[in-house]
């Protein structure tokens, strides 16, 4: 029997008092796709960074092809045939695909780079593994999915037969995800062993041969997925979180009151000056969740920014609780009772280098000063309360926001926005990149805020989430609302509208 491609025994890695990995066992067989499943902060990335030589373990043994090894650097990992594709790509945007792939192992002619040989090498490699990508394209011009292929090609070019992908689908569209899965299956069938880090249950079930579940730095177990009795999602979720998880939110019937958010004939341009929101009108009443569904890039981002006064609208009007907030600046909108859970929490939701206490004060610092001066003591006390109420783990009020996991960062954003007591809460992709436990938390909280009488506008690309949470669904297509559906609508009905079928055609016909 051949030894496993990669075997980790009793790996322990501590950061200060916290054990990110605590005696983790993991075995990757030759030619399998092995998913590493766990919540944010369960230690998946830490484990794989150890395998790739980015971190050194405090204890434990690593065997590659049966031989015990120590991996001190990524260079050593590459020599052992281990390649890693990070969530954040490490590509040089202005160079071509071929240049990026050969970077670090360039074919040369004398002292010069032999770019023809590079292109040929990349084309051959891409062809052999069925990864279609143009070697001469410049990286910044190609899609995220293609950039990921470049990363995979680079690893293969270095002779990787063990490929680690850290949450590879987090940045991909559904279509790109499907393509990636095809690519990975192809690689597996040619003998590459693949570790697939994820916290998305459906994906793991779709792609993996086996799953190892990590929880709080420990191995919970390894399950056959491809076998005769594959676990269902609820079972995987239970393993991952350690308790039963409600994959569907339970909520009472909606009892809508008066409209709190009113958007009339809103028009806004995107950054290139093209019309992105094209005459959108809707309202959200207190005590209801209205979801805006649509394929990414149909004006959702611009709509949210225009509603929150982060982008000056070209025309139209936004009122919050009867007060006109159009074009008066984000602070005014917030003072009128608008809360905003930003789409990109790391970029716009939080100041990553601030402490949690400072981040929690970000929204209403002007109301918490005396003679223009802050009181760190009161800020800390308030932060301590909020962190407890919203169950934020991974650091106290003095910890930097940067040091928290994604789910906990999102809880901080939600805590800040809800604590300000908004009448209207705009939640833009509030669960993007979160694990099931954190998603459940966010969903429950949004429903609780709805029941407390707030008007909630949800923007999401996940149809499940939309149908789960919304009391009404508005479909956006090319900057227009093309239809309204009840949450009982089928995925097909929604999908048809989202792609511009059905209502959209008639809407445009009548407009013309």
């Amino acid at each position: 029997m051949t030894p496993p491609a990669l075997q980790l025994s009793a790996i322990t890695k501590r950061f200060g008092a916290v054990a990110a990995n605590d005696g983790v066992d993991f075995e990757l067989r030759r030619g399998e796709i092995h998913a590493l499943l766990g919540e944010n902060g369960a230690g998946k990335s830490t484990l794989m960074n150890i395998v790739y030589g980015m971190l050194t373990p405090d204890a434990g043994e690593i065997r590659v092809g049966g031989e015990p090894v120590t991996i001190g650097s990524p260079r050593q990992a590459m020599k052992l045939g281990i390649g890693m594709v990070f969530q954040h790509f490490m590509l040089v945007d202005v160079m071509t695909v071929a240049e990026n792939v050969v970077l670090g192992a360039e074919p040369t002619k004398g002292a010069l780079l032999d770019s023809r040989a590079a292109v040929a090498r990349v084309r051959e490699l891409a062809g052999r593994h069925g990864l279609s990508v143009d070697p001469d394209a410049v990286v910044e011009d190609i899609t995220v999915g293609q950039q990921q292929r470049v990363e995979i090609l680079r690893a293969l070019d270095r002779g990787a037969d063990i490929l680690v992908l850290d949450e590879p689908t987090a940045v991909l569209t559904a279509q790109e995800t499907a393509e990636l899965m095809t690519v990975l299956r192809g690689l597996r069938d040619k003998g590459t062993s693949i570790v697939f880090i994820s916290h998305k249950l459906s994906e793991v079930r779709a792609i993996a041969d086996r799953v190892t579940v990590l929880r709080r730095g420990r191995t919970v177990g390894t399950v056959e997925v491809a076998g005769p009795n594959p676990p269902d999602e609820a079972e995987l979720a239970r393993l991952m979180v350690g308790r039963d998880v409600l994959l569907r939110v339970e909520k009472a019937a909606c009892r809508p009151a008066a409209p709190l958010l009113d958007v009339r004939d809103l028009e806004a341009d995107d950054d290139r000056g093209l019309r992105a929101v094209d005459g959108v009108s809707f309202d959200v009443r207190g005590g209801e969740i209205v979801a805006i569904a649509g394929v990414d890039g149909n004006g959702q981002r611009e709509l949210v920014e225009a509603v929150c006064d982060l982008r000056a609208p070209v025309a139209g009007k936004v009122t919050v609780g009867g007060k006109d907030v159009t074009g008066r600046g984000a602070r005014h909108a917030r003072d009128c009772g608008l809360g905003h859970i930003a789409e990109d929490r790391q970029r716009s939701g939080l100041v990553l280098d601030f402490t949690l206490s400072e981040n929690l004060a970000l929204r209403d610092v002007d109301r918490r000063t005396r003679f223009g001066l802050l009181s760190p003591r009161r800020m800390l006390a308030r932060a301590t309360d909020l962190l407890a109420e919203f169950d934020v783990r991974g650091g106290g009020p003095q910890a930097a926001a940067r040091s928290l996991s994604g789910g906990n960062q999102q809880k901080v954003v939600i805590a800040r926005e809800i604590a300000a007591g908004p009448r209207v809460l705009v939640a833009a992709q509030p669960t993007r990149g979160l694990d099931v436990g954190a998603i459940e938390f966010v969903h429950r909280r949004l429903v609780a805020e709805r029941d407390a009488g707030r008007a909630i506008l949800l923007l999401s690309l996940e149809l499940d989430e939309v149908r789960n949470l919304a009391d009404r669904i508005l479909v956006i297509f090319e900057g227009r609302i093309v239809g309204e559906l009840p949450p009982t609508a089928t995925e097909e009905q929604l999908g048809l509208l989202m792609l511009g079928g059905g209502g959209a055609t008639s809407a445009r016909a009548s407009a013309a």
Partner: protein
Amino acid sequence: MTAPTPSDHRGPAATRLLRHLSVGGAVAPLITTIVAFFVGGLVVLATGKDPLTTYKAIFDGTGLNWLLPWSGDRALAATNLQQTLINTGPLILCGLAVAYAFRAGLFNIGAQGQYTMGTIAAVYAGSSWAGLPGWLHVVLAMAVAALAGAAWAGIAGALRASTGANEVITTIMLNYTALWIGVYLFGLGGPLQANDQPDVPVSNDIVGGAKLPVFWGDKDLQGLHVGIFVAVLAAGIFWVVLNRSRLGYEARAVGFSPPAARSAGIGVGRTYVVTMAICGLFAGLAGSLDILGWQFHLATNDISASQVGFLGIAVALLGRNTAIGTCFAALLFGALSQGTSVRNLDPAVFQPELAQNLTTVIQGLVVLLVSADVLLASVWRRRRARAGGGGAAAAPPTPTTLGSVSP
């Protein structure tokens, strides 16, 4: 828990540098200084002199030996220390002018121009309004100078806010503009040139009542004026504004993450203008200290020869953009220029002309090494992260450790 990712290090250069510099203890700047002096010693050695005696002579020239009561000529040491501290005051203020911008993610290369506008305003205010009571005249002249600096810096902030013009470029250009405004005003035939000296490109002298009181040493022989207290007080205000006021909190938020600040309702453009204006306040005030404290008038060659605003950049970098660090760095640079001045250094030990260049060498090395210091900090952090000993991911960062800026 996640590994360092390249995206964490993206963003404007100022923000990245800020992240490295704004937090951190005294260890790295101390090492920086020691290395700079060591290399400076090698330069002395290369000229065939003894570095140790040279440094000793420079040290004695700074007057800092006054603090060691058993050593040498007390009166001479006192005089030298007074001069060192006269240098230090404006350096502190110019350092603060650069540091404050830094904390808001802005590079203020324009402290020199803001300082120049401060001197112009101070000399105008000090030589006019002769009838005012002394203390009021001093305070008014200082206020006018600070406001002139603020307005000057505010231009760069407003340009950044309205058009996105990079403040590095605009502040450098405003330095030249300020210089030539001064040359025009006080040059021969200029509107503010001295009434009684038509052949000299210099301003009128300020009136006696507008002079800063001298509290140590001879008032007629350039004793130490109260400006040093103004500067130290300003450093205290700097700390309060930055760490305890809404203004500073918003400036820091903008410095670290403009999108997050904007999303939280902070006016990013407004913050740029206000931040630059505050920087200008400090630099303009520095100008008033020199005019009201010991120069008493302004000649066109004073304006072109002045370097104090540029030194402010080195002061802020070495002081790691903190109030206390800026004070010590300013003292170091103030002492260096005093210790190497012509009248203080015995040519037999080391030629004073060379010694002044030595000062420049050391100052230059400090700025250069600050970048190395950033490198050192990041290597250190990576090693700690790999070793995991009290790594940044788990332990709450303590602002005194070098590795506290978490990956």
